[in-house]
């Protein structure tokens, strides 16, 4: 029982990271209808800017975060403006090829600029872990969970309660009708790319101290985050958060009681089972249109 509790405590940090990464992915999908396979690479790129802020501009970690968040917003916006508006109506295969191409391109460029050697990024809080008696949780893991919940809460409130959120949901539900009603579709899709890439970047900022920063750092994280998004119904914000923690906890329990070698496989078995029982994910809504 104690071991079980330890495994749970140990998994919340990565659960939060998967949840945040999935939130960004889902936000972009919701409003623009594009599955952004480059989301991990874009987030790594922002983290490179975080690293450059700390180690090249020599600013404090807090200021480097601010710079990197702003950079992430710009990177997301640029993707939308330069590339993705063009493929809105393109067949799905073209979208996949384009975002995968973007993934390779960004990893290649950041590799050329910053190199592939893993880089250290300081923990946000650091210091001794909290707890005793064999139960410990790192301060940074608490920060990760708190930040995840705050971001999810703010996004939910904005989406459900605000004028802009209503407009974004209208764009997600029926882009053409939203445009007919005077909703500035382009601006909202741009905003969702900006904010979506920024939120996934937050997860990359948080994971970088744990796994070392490299241009390909997010590849394996992205797989779990993608799983989290699918588990949550690929479209539900709450689903992405719950999916992230479920995947994080499941992966740790599998690693703890079986072996890390089965982790990825069994997490995907779990997802297949969930999708078999609930084809629209844990929080997805059945896509039935009433005539």
């Amino acid at each position, binding site marked *: 029982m104690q071991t079980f509790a330890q495994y749970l405590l140990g998994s919340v940090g990565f659960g939060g990271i998967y949840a945040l990464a999935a939130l960004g992915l889902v936000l972009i999908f919701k409003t623009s209808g594009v599955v952004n396979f480059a989301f991990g690479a874009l987030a790594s790129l922002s983290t490179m800017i975080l690293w450059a802020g700390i180690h090249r501009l020599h600013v404090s970690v807090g200021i480097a975060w601010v710079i990197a968040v702003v950079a992430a917003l710009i990177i997301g916006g640029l993707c939308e403006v330069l590339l993705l508006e063009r493929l809105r109506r393109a067949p799905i295969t073209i979208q996949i090829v384009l975002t995968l191409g973007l993934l390779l391109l960004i*990893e290649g460029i950041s590799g050329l600029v910053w190199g592939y050697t*893993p*880089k250290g990024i300081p923990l946000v809080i650091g210091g001794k872990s909290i707890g005793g008696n064999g139960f410990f949780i790192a301060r940074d893991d608490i920060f990760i969970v708190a930040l995840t919940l705050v971001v999810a809460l703010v996004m939910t409130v904005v989406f459900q309660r605000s004028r802009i959120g209503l407009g974004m949901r209208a764009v997600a539900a029926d882009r053409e009708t939203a445009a007919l009603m005077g909703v500035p579709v382009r601006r909202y899709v741009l905003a969702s790319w900006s904010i979506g890439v920024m939120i996934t970047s937050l997860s990359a900022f948080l994971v970088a101290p744990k796994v070392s920063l490299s241009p390909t750092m997010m590849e394996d994280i992205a797989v779990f985050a993608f799983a989290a998004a699918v588990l949550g119904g690929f479209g539900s914000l709450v689903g992405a958060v719950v999916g992230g923690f479920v995947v994080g906890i499941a992966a740790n329990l599998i690693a703890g009681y079986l072996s890390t070698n089965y982790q990825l496989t069994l997490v995907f078995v779990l997802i297949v089972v969930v999708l078999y029982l609930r084809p629209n994910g844990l929080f997805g809504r059945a896509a039935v249109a009433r005539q």
Partner: protein
Amino acid sequence: MNHGPCESTALRRRGPRAAATGAALVALSLALAACGSGGSSGSGSGSNAGATAPGVTANSITFGQTAPHTGPTGEYGQSAYGVTAYFDMVNAKGGVNGRKLKLISLDDHYDPPTALQDTKKLVYQDHVFAEVAVNGSATTNADLTVLVPQNVPLVGPQSGDQFLQPFKKSVYNVWPSYVVEGKTMGDFAINNLHLTHVIAFYQNDPFGQALLQGVEQSAAASKLAAKISYDPTQTDFSTDALKAKNANGDGVLFLSVPGSTNAMENSMASINYKPKLIMSQVSAIPGSSFSAAPQEFPGAYVGAFVQPLNPPANAEAKQFVDAMKKYQPGKPISVFSGWGWIEAQTAVAGLKNVHGSLTRDSYEAGLNSIKNLKTMGGSVTYGPHDHIGLTCEFVVQARNRKFVPVQGGPSCQ
């Protein structure tokens, strides 16, 4: 404004254009990946007029190398700088028997099919005499499918893997095997640190398993509290850290690659678990050249065969540092360039032993007669049926961002 046909402005199809953009992006990224390849020094072999063997002319000898110069393992390719520095030093003194040494180094992205392609180009097109400092286990394995049948000598495959140990007539190992390294780490943990509960944290592939095999042959074999394997793609090490802690491990042997080592160490710190850290040299490299220890692991013990470089721990290391500054100014003075240096030194020693005409057979005979060649990683001795190379590893400690020798630890002096 577009006054084309009365098409729907909202529904204008953009398929073909997007397809073109996508294709262009993919092409661009592939081009980017490829643009790092090409020789890092030296030029083509030129004419073979008057040559006694491929790659040998009256005034030059051309060596080939495949190594990653780009990609996640691109730093390994720094060994080319070490090889070139040694060649330049020899050339400055007139070369070997009047022949200047050249290196053609091709980028293999750490990818076996690319490495094989590069090797074919080096052997069939550039007609290199021999290869030196070929990087990586899987890549070297691929290269050997061409090098061995063509009887192209290979000095210094950069791997400690098992497949190199069965004797091959034309392959000369320099690196100590991973088994030697694992054994050194295990013995050190017991004999020097007096640990009682040792954790072996290993990558579940031939590299990690070979290190583990060495640990199991060491004094630590009877004190192993847990063997924890991880997957090369794994990022979350929370449970592994807990398992190590729950096994009351007082020391962890890191038989792992840099990213995983760092992630595991972080997970251990987050549960206030602070055992002694003993790392293989491959584990401990993140974010730094070997001249500066990574700040992430203060106090960690690291297996090594390249002597500490900052300050140089012996005369051979000093010669390397000075030559790098002179012949490859600005290039990293790192464990990677150090590898290349030692391997080039071995390759040249073999050349110097050749009296009479230089052929691949006479070169192999020259290499076979190397006895007690003093390198900064210990001494190299070959025989007609002994191509093992370095057999000794020692341990250094990370202190104040430097690697320093450990008093009373294993020594290769």
